[in-house]
């Protein structure tokens, strides 16, 4: 069986006053109908990797790769027009900034409905029901009230769940989730991740989960890539993350506070050693 996603030697660069800089430097991986986690410090190129796969890097940013295949089709050679029916319907991305990605002048219910209508025709009544069910599924307590709200009226965690609802409702084959649960407390977080899991098991969806929460990724994913300064420095089975050997990964693990914390200062990475950020 061909993998869902094959990426070979992906590079992303931007012009700056100091010349063109590469922020993703030759990333390669394949993804089946499974859960792949990407971790790494701030600025290491996680979001840019996700956006590049959906071809969402705008000029003057530049993307090159030797190979970028999604379910047997070549993403690199597709025109912007040919990308559009794929995005949303077959591959979708939960962005790191939910409020910024939502339309400020449209109620959240209308936006979720729009996400369905863009790709299939559904009778109005059935659509409203599907929107309500989806909001319930992401654990919004009062779905009818929230559906009528505008993005600035929902809380941080509610906005994040609205975004998740919008991306899941068309039942994509590939979901790229960029810090999807960073504003949620652990119990809601677990429920939302279970929902995504159902889609993986029942619909054979593939997941690329970008997160800075190492414990979450270890618990939830099958495999993990660790990124630093635009490169993958370590890849391992999720179950083995706590036994990771790369000093960078060890440094990240040590920096996590614990609920029974007694340290006065948290250990930080020695940036000079990896020139991160």
């Amino acid at each position: 069986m061909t993998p869902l996603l094959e990426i070979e030697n992906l590079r992303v660069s931007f012009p700056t006053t100091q010349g063109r800089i590469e922020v993703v430097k030759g990333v390669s991986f394949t993804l089946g109908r499974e859960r792949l986690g990407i971790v790494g410090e701030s600025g290491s190129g996680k979001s840019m990797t996700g956006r590049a796969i959906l071809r969402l890097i705008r000029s003057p940013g530049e993307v090159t790769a030797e190979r970028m295949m999604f379910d047997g089709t070549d993403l690199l050679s597709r025109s912007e027009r040919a990308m559009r029916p794929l995005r949303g319907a077959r591959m979708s991305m939960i962005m790191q900034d939910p409020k910024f990605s939502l339309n400020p002048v449209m109620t959240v219910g209308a936006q979720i409905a729009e996400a369905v209508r863009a790709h299939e025709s559904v009778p109005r009544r059935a659509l409203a029901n599907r929107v309500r069910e989806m909001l319930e599924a992401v654990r919004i307590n009062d779905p009818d009230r929230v559906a009528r709200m505008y993005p600035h009226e929902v809380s941080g965690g509610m906005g994040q769940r609205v975004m998740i609802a919008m991306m899941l409702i068309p039942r994509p084959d590939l979901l790229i989730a960029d810090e999807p649960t960073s504003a949620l407390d652990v119990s809601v977080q677990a429920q939302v991740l279970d929902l995504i899991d159902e889609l993986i098991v029942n619909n054979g969806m593939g997941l690329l989960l970008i997160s800075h929460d190492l414990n979450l990724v270890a618990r939830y994913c099958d495999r993990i890539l660790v990124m630093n300064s635009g490169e993958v420095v370590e890849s391992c089975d999720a179950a083995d993350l706590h036994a990771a050997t790369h000093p960078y990964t060890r440094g990240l693990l040590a920096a996590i506070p614990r609920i029974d914390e007694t340290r006065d200062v948290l250990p930080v990475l020695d940036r000079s050693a990896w020139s991160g950020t």
Partner: protein
Amino acid sequence: MTAISLKSLTISYGGIPAVHDVSLEIGDGESFALVGESGSGKSTVLRAIAGLAPEWTGEISVLGAPRGHGPDRAFARTCQMVFQDPYGSLHPRKTVDSVLSEPLIVHGLSERSGRVSEALDMVGLGQEFRFRFPHQLSGGQRQRVAIARALMLKPRIMLLDEPTSALDVSVQAEILNLLKRLRRDQGLTYLMVTHNLPVVAFMCDRMAVMNAGRVVETAPSSALRTGDFSDPYAQHLYAASGGDEIASKDGQ
């Protein structure tokens, strides 16, 4: 002296209450956490103190002075807020340099260039970020700019809304260490919203747990080592955050 005192505070949006009858006393120099369910009103409490949620009844006073219902320029020197959503709070067409200089200009402060580069250093951003726009920064880099901006006026009180939830663990560790050091050196007071109980254990002296618009329990953060909570929602949150593992370790 109390830094922040809230008495029977009820806060509404368009006539509908979102926060009910909250009373809290936060001491000068204390680090206090608000934790709880998503949508329970944590950001709303911070917004009311900052003058951004004007529909409230009850009493708010800061460093002994009663607060009015709107924003107030002099108040900005004493108390600064870091918002939950770093993108929304940074102007898309302003460079990092102008975002950080602006509060200095508004308050007529000098030596702006030096202060801006000092603030970038403090939050671990190199000088190469100084003339970038928000869309040229990663999520964590934007959040560090937002924290640097709040520090520009050297406030005595910081209202921090999920200041590190967009940050990876290594940058989070740096920011938490920085906030801790600033508090020790400059006697700052923090009122911090977070959903991360380990962050509370590291940073805070006391915490209030919110659920459905109310404070259901107030506890010292040492309760996170023992699991000493009486409210059922607080117990649930503690167990789900890994507290159950600690409790069972102790039991063995």
